[in-house]
């Protein structure tokens, strides 16, 4: 090779050497193969797609924390929060988001951290896929989950340890807690993500049939959506611990559960490092990488498994972490779970409420759990579950085009108020019912929480639903309010009145 060809090569090598300490290798590795992969996205797209939106949320958070100066961060995060909660979470991407597109500066700064998170997220999703694969029996599922966990841990340079790390690492370092103190609302959203990411394992374990699992997943998703209502009032105030939110999963697969807690701690630690003035910009990468090394180490700053199991109680109990993913919810404290934190605009709500058992939400489209008013002489949780179930059956019959099913739920003297008119049951059958069914079948509906109140043998359920879609060439993007009045007839509830109204929605910002 001649000298003039050698010079550029030498220059290139010098540049490479000089910058080698700031370079990471790509180091991507394929995940564990098997037919189970993608079963969750296929069977539970409402959950699988939501995780894609969560990836965006995590990524954009780091990018904004890293690139925005402190005075501009809150406004930037608020803008992203609005985009997430009014747009991306409602219409999440079909497939995973290329995070380096969303967090280009952060990915260049700390690629290894991104890879470590990606690798743990792969484990998260594969376990969901295993639970969603109906071709596997419970024993095979448990064996396979341990196998994919082995595979995950075999990559020692990128795996979080399966030994529980001390909370001291998250809470008591010189940079700790800065993010949650300066940006509590976004922090609450991230914790709500983490709550759902571990909480969704529970209905998949509890359910014994595909229908039960589906209903349980929808109910857990509904609880997540409830957290987003009136935010940040209902967000977790403590980092959700897998042992508390997913106790059955944690008992079956403690290694994976610990890995996820370590992952979620590391999420918070990186947020703190990025926001901390005490970590100068040119030190952030080194500090992040030191923490990654700490979280790969299973012998330093670890706690016992017994301590880990009791950690949630020590941190304030499950209710401070967003509540259980399944089963009955305890009434939140007055003013909401976040009442003790300083949030602008958070309004205490005078009434306390409880939530019906999610078994009442069988085959319900994405609906938040119902609330019902407590008080002497008022209905039981069982009553409210039945009322919610009636709303759900009515919805399902409309969506299925089952006009007979719809009419069977209406009392003989039922009245339907819509479009400025009042119709009897018979008039509804011959006039509006067909159009309402066509509409219900043509559009995508996302119902918010159903509020149920019961007084003796009378009950009323109110809710709002966002409606999007196209019918006969016309685009619809609206919010619909619904009030159903029901009465108990013998042992069953019947609909005595329905009132619908709607308004156009503003396009999401």
């Amino acid at each position, binding site marked *: 090779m001649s000298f003039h060809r050698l010079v550029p090569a030498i220059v290139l090598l010098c540049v490479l050497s000089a910058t080698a300490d700031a370079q990471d290798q790509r180091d*991507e590795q394929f995940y564990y193969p098997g037919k189970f992969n993608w079963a969750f996205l296929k069977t539970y797209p409402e959950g699988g797609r939501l995780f894609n939106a969560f990836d965006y949320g995590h990524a954009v958070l780091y990018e904004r924390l890293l690139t925005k100066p402190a005075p501009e961060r809150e406004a930037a995060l608020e803008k992203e929060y609005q985009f997430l909660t009014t747009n991306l979470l409602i219409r999440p991407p079909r497939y995973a988001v290329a995070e380096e597109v969303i967090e280009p500066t952060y990915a260049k700064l700390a690629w290894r951290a991104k890879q470590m998170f990606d690798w743990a997220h792969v484990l998260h999703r594969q376990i969901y896929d295993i639970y969603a694969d109906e071709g596997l029996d419970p024993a095979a599922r448990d064996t396979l989950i341990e196998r994919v966990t082995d595979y995950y841990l075999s990559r020692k340079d990128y795996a979080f340890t399966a030994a529980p790390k001390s909370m001291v690492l998250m809470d008591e370092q010189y940079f700790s807690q800065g993010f949650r103190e300066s940006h509590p609302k976004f922090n609450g959203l991230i914790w709500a993500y983490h709550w759902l990411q571990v909480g969704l394992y529970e209905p998949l374990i509890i359910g014994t049939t595909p229908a039960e699992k589906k209903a349980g997943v929808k109910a857990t998703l509904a609880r997540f959506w409830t957290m987003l209502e009136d935010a940040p009032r209902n967000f977790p105030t403590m980092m959700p611990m897998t042992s508390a939110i997913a106790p059955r999963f944690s008992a079956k697969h403690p290694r994976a559960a610990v890995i996820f807690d370590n992952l979620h701690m590391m999420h918070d630690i990186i947020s703190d490092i990025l926001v901390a003035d005490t970590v100068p910009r040119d030190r952030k990468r080194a500090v992040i990488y030191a923490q990654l090394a700490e979280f790969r180490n299973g012998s330093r700053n670890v706690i016992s498994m017994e301590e880990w199991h009791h950690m949630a109680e020590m941190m304030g109990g499950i209710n401070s972490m967003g509540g259980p993913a399944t089963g009955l919810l305890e009434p939140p404290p007055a003013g909401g779970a976040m009442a003790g934190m300083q949030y602008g605009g958070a309004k205490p709500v005078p009434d306390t409420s409880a939530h019906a058992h999610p078994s009442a939400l069988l085959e319900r489209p994405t609906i938040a759990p119902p609330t019902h008013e407590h008080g002497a002489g008022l209905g039981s949780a069982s009553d409210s579950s039945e009322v919610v179930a009636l709303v759900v059956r009515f919805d399902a019959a409309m969506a299925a085009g089952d006009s007979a099913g719809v009419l069977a739920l209406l009392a003989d003297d039922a009245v339907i108020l819509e479009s400025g008119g009042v119709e009897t049951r018979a008039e509804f059958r011959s006039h509006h019912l067909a159009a309402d069914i066509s509409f219900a079948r043509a559009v995508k509906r996302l119902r918010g929480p159903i509020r149920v109140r019961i007084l003796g043998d009378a009950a009323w359920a109110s809710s709002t639903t966002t409606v999007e879609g196209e019918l006969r060439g016309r685009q619809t993007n609206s919010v619909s309010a619904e009030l159903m009045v029901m009465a108990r007839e013998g042992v069953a509830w019947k609909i005595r009145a329905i009132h619908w109204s709607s308004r156009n929605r503003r396009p999401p910002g």
Partner: protein
Amino acid sequence: MPSRLIEMATIRIMLILAVVLAAPSVARAQLDYRNLDDDRPTLIEDAYPVEHYAFELVAPWRYSRARGAPGGVHAFIPELEYGLFSNFHLGVKLPIARAPTSTGPEWGISGVRGFALYNFNTEGRWLPGLAVRADAAFPVGTHAGEGTRFTAKVIATRSWGQSRIHLNGAYTFGTDRPLAAADASHRWWLGGAVDRTLFRQSALLIIELYALRPTSAEPVEVNTSLGVRYQLTPLAVCDLGIARRLRRTGPDYEITLGVSRAFALAGLLPGRP
């Protein structure tokens, strides 16, 4: 091998690949649409290899028609890549082409190509992602040209948010001999491409400009291409590209259509920790 037999074999290979590509195995998936492979749908590739332990099966078809040529060339170029080590993959291509001959268009194998790509680094604050690739094209088949050719390529990828820029430069060693009818190793080529990720649609748009000299005796071509890669399912990516010459020589038009799928074999993965 007679052209008719090659044609039949090509159809069989395409059918087998179609079955494999449609099978419910595992794929890296979801983000494959961002992996720019060479010639799919544009000439330029990105600096990143397939993942460690991953196989990627690629089945592209191309039709190319050069200015003044008696007929176009159909090429079916099945390709298999394997992430043998971290940041390193090996691959093999078996181009099969239907090209004009003195007795009319005939099907024939257009050489066998083996290659290896090594990525030095992912992009950081200062450096782009950098990779080198080495190809060996062997003269196997009636449309393969003459002689074994070795090509070295340097690849760089740099991103700005949703957009990336890729630079590729390749040089083929050895004497000038007749080239293969499809997937030929040109004396040199140099090109740049810009792509844009549409993350909600899981799609990638690409535009490229490149210059190449097929052999030392031929003029330099300057061509441009447009392409799109789209994540069809979590398991499969399809791509579509068109190219056109900007000077007197080069393709009047070239159309590329392909589908790819990644998978892994559990038996090749590491055991317990």
